[in-house]
């Protein structure tokens, strides 16, 4: 049985009359990447900041590594690493000096050179933080969060505002951490990020948890059909052999399959029986899950569009 490192039960957070979190419950196990996904204002940052001991819950219980977030904040802070939303640090200190500062604040010892190399910061170690690109700044934030070798790493919207390349580079860093067995708690509004990184995902909107589970499991449960779009002669006839659900769409034929296996059989047949066909496969993803569960989608700016 997996060890639970985060336990949240009926967590509520109110700001005056506004309820930011309306009684959510979930668990995170050691070594997994847990992602809380939702639009802006969904309650992601409030939740993660309660777990980081930066906010006090109004009601409910939250325990990190067995410690209560209200009573044992100092114990929790010693054992976690945090990359806050809109991370910033001392602008005029170099990359290395900032990481050493984080090390000293955690009471850790030892050199930081290995960490600089692992996170691709070695070349910029002597550059001032304020002179770095957004992507590099986020990497420094991750390095500062990791320098104390934490048991859990909290990443609050780590790739927001980064260009696609910097985003993917940071994903690689997070994947490496997973391979090392670090537990990662990630908040994001990017569905592709959840698919690329998360083991378990919680969908949160308006302070309520709409769904929670393993990513694959949620996709197969809520994602819908695999869509195979074909352009060319006899496409309709061939697709018809494998599914009754065939429609025409902008001069092409689209067949819908209830599982990846069924779609794979149809594709194999299509490739075998006819050449010159233009085939496009559209698998369901977190976007479809979100659409099905919440009834809307999240745009690039993190806004909920119904």
């Amino acid at each position: 049985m997996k060890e639970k490192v985060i336990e949240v039960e009926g967590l509520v957070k109110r700001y005056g009359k506004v309820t930011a979190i309306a009684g959510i419950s979930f668990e995170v196990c050691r070594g997994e990447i847990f992602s809380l996904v939702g639009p802006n204002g969904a309650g992601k940052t409030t939740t993660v900041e309660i777990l980081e001991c930066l906010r006090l819950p109004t009601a409910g219980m939250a325990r990190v590594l067995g410690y209560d977030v209200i009573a044992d904040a100092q114990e929790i802070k010693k054992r976690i690493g945090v990359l806050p939303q809109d991370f910033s640090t001392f602008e005029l200190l170099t990359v290395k000096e900032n990481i050493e500062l984080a090390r000293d604040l955690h009471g850790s010892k030892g050199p930081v050179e290995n960490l600089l190399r692992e996170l691709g910061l070695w070349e910029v170690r002597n550059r001032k933080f304020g002179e770095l690109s957004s992507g590099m700044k986020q990497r420094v934030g991750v390095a500062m969060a990791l320098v104390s070798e934490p048991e859990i790493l909290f990443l609050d919207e780590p790739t927001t505002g980064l260009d696609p390349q910097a985003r993917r580079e940071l994903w690689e860093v997070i994947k490496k951490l997973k391979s090392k067995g670090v537990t990662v708690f990630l908040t994001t509004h990017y569905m592709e990020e959840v698919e690329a990184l998360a083991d378990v995902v919680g969908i949160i909107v308006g302070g309520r948890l709409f769904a929670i589970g393993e990513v694959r499991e949620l996709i197969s449960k809520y994602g819908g059909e695999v869509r195979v779009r074909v352009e060319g002669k006899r496409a309709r006839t061939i697709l018809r052999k494998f599914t009754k659900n065939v429609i025409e769409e902008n001069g092409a034929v689209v067949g819908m399959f209830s599982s990846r296996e069924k779609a794979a059989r149809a594709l194999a047949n299509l490739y075998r029986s006819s050449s010159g066909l233009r085939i496009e496969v559209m698998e369901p993803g977190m976007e479809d899950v979100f659409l099905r569960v919440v009834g809307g989608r999240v745009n690039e700016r993190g806004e909920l569009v119904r």
Partner: protein
Amino acid sequence: MRGALAVFKACMKNWIRSRAGVFFSFLFPLLLLLVFGTVFGERGEVKYTLYVQNLDLENGQPSLLSRTFLQVLESVRALRIENLAPTVDVETYVREHPSFTSYRILIIPENFHRKAESKAIYVRTCVISDTVRYLLQTYGSHMKENEREAAENGLALMEKWKENMTIENSEILLLTEEGDTAAPVVGGILASVVNTFNNRLIGAESVAEVQSGRLIHRGLKAADYYLPGYIAAFVMTNGVIGVTSITSDFGRRGVIKMLATTPLKKSSWIVGVVLQQTALALSLALVMVGTGWIIFGVRALPDIWAVLLIVLGAVTFCSLGMAMGGSIRNPDAAAAAGNAVAFPMMFLSGAFWPVEMMPEFMQTVAKVMPLYYFHDGLRRIMILKNPSQAIPSFLVMTVLATVFLTLAIKVTKWREL
């Protein structure tokens, strides 16, 4: 303590690399010390310009008495005499030669010599006749008959002579501009010169004279008086303006949030910043005293008590800055608030000039400002070398440091940022 030292190190490096920070908290105070030290120091003796138009001419040349009067004026160190030609129309001259400084014009009228001379003879005659009358009244009965008669005849002659004399006061005219704060000073100097001149004209000797001396014979200069005030003022501005802005900026940019996610305690963050500001205050004091010593030859050097008071001042004003920066999230508003607190305190507390120069109600205002107790205590220690006189300052600053530090801890948010 480890956390506080890490914060101290980070803040110190951040400050050293900030050009604006180094300029405003270190170089700017030094610059002001040099400027003010030169302006108000002994090297810059105060001189008031006085325009003089001499209309008393004899055969186109200034009369003897008016020339002598001018020579006396020129010998006064506090006056710079500029001569205006007798043909110049004063009002036209002032209109056509606008100046940032106020005009003070002394006009020596026509017949100054003649009137002064005749008045002097009249006064001397009065003195002699009064003396003769006094002698007759007091010692007349002891005089021989012929001597008394001769004295009485002489007295009658003098009285007759006085009656026939034309007596006119020789008036000189001082024209000043409205709002010229130096006019009373120049008027006072002139009155003193005229008085001396009058005495000399009637042949009177000085009965009493003023001798100048120093209360404290330690060879202190003006810079010695100003230096403790400057140190106190700039330790205050570094805390109230500098720390307020930095703390607010760190809060807005999320640096404080980043720090709060680590095991660093709120109190350690505050102690770290206070330590950095204290080190900065001591370095600033050291450099200012060094500069004052080398350039102005100051002798009012700090001792251990002065160092203690500077530390107390740094803690007080840095804590005030942290309390303000912690409660104002907008850095622009925080900087404005810092300026609004620091500048009135800097100029009204008497740090730059003695409070006695200010109106009475402003003196009362000065004495409720924390900076007053800081610079007053420093002056008593550094100039008078009497730490016991600085006990009230130590007490007030200790109370304020405790209050502001407590406020800073209370206001600084470590949760719900």
